[in-house]
Every structure is written in structure tokens, then in C-alpha cells.
């Protein structure tokens, strides 16, 4: 069971680190949003703050990328894990909501991240009790 949890933590960490860096260096092939105009619009607005690259650079992709990379790193080196999991919550929620609302077929990785996030939050619940006094 212990090894299982280490694998979950490292797996989520590596996944986030890869997706985080991708938002700066765009190493992976671009997503194909053909047939999903809202998804494409949102993605472009996030990346370029406009409909096309001439509109200037957006801030969201860098912010989400940086957060993902930091959370990924914290999970991998096992430092401030409860904080890392809280930082990931808004990203998990929006990954899932984005795919549910505008791009359902590619929901797989989003669900994986969200489920791992929830499970690890549950495992570390003791660290959050102080917030509910």
C-alpha cells in the first residue's frame, strides 16, 4: 500500500511537471480542437489573450504552467505536499469543467488528475482540519 501511494504521488507529480513545462515550451503536439470552436476560442484567448498570436501573450497559460510545474516538483520531492495539493485544486476543477462543458471527448487526463488530487487530499486530510475551526 505504501509503494502504491508513492507511485500515485510520483505519477501525478511527473504528469504535472510534463504538462507544466509544455505550457512554456510547447513540446507536445498542439491539441486539435476541430469541431469545438468554444474550446479553440478559450485556448487561444488563454495563450495569446486574443484570437490569434498577434494579439499578444496571455498570462493564463504561463500561470497555470508555472503552478503545475511547482506542484509537480513539490510532489516529486515530497515537500509541502498538503500545500501542493491545495494549489492544484483550482486547476483540477477547471480542467474537468473545461472538458465537460466544451471538449468532452478528451476528458481522460483531466479526470485522472482530478481523481488523484481528490484521493491525495483525502489521504492528507489531517493537514486541513485547522482551516475548519
Amino acid at each position, binding site marked *: 500500500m505504501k509503494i502504491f501511494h508513492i507511485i500515485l504521488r510520483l505519477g501525478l507529480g511527473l504528469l504535472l511537471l510534463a504538462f507544466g513545462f509544455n505550457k512554456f515550451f510547447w513540446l507536445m503536439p498542439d491539441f486539435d480542437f476541430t469541431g469545438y470552436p*468554444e474550446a479553440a*476560442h*478559450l485556448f*487561444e*484567448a*488563454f495563450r495569446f*489573450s*486574443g*484570437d490569434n498570436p498577434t*494579439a*499578444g501573450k*496571455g*498570462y493564463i497559460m504561463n*500561470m497555470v504552467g508555472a503552478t503545475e510545474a511547482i506542484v509537480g516538483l513539490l510532489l516529486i520531492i*515530497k*515537500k*509541502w*505536499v*498538503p*500545500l501542493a495539493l*491545495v494549489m492544484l*485544486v*483550482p486547476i483540477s*476543477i*477547471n480542467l474537468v*469543467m*473545461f472538458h465537460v*462543458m*466544451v471538449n468532452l471527448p478528451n476528458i481522460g487526463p483531466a479526470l485522472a488528475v482530478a481523481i488523484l488530487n481528490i484521493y491525495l487530499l483525502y489521504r492528507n486530510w*489531517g*493537514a*486541513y*482540519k*485547522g*482551516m*475548519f*475551526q
Partner: protein
Amino acid sequence: MNSTFTTILRIVLGIVLLVFGLNKFLNFIQMFEMPPAAANFMESLETTGYAFYLVAIIEIAVAIMLLLKKWVPFALILLAPLTFNILLFHMFLDVSDIWVAIVIFSLNVLLMYKYWKAYRSLFQY
């Protein structure tokens, strides 16, 4: 944690959030003109069909918790991502209307500092 100053900050932040949260459903505040990139960004969020409702519901929930003084540290951490994005949105896309964002950011940070004890366990391992 219980000084008059903290209480005032908490109630002010609660009221501000309640007003902005309700405004996303009822639209009683006149919206200022936004630069094109900001307007495009907002429009892209509207097309998701959920983003502004989610933000509004979180703002109202946080406001109620702050006003009732229930789970205040949780309310503040729930608000943190919104605060952060309100600030960044104005910094990058609409800097002329940044002052409300700065007020909300300062209140959020100051209150988290006052309730810091509740967050210590996040940094334990």
C-alpha cells in the same frame, strides 16, 4: 485573530465579495469599457458556460463564511485563486481598473497572515 481591525477587514472583504458575486447574476453594476484583449478574454470565458457562475458562487460562499465568521481560514484559501487571477487579469489585460483588484488582494493576504496558524500544517512535509 480577534482584534477589531481583523474584524473590520473580514467584514469589508465579505461585503465586497457579496456585491461582486451577486452582480454576476443580477448585473446591477455598470461595467466599465475593457480593452479589446480583455474583452476577448472575458468573452472566451463566457462561452465556456460555467466560468462566471463558478466564480460568482465561490465569491458568494466565501462572503457568507466571512460575514458569519465560519471556517474563515478555509474561506480565505478558497478565495486565493480568484484573488490571484483578478490581480493578474488586470495587470496583464486591463491595468487602468486595477485598484479594486489591489484592494481585494491586500485584504486576502492580510487576513491569511492573521490566520496563519491554520495553514502551518500545510507546510509540515
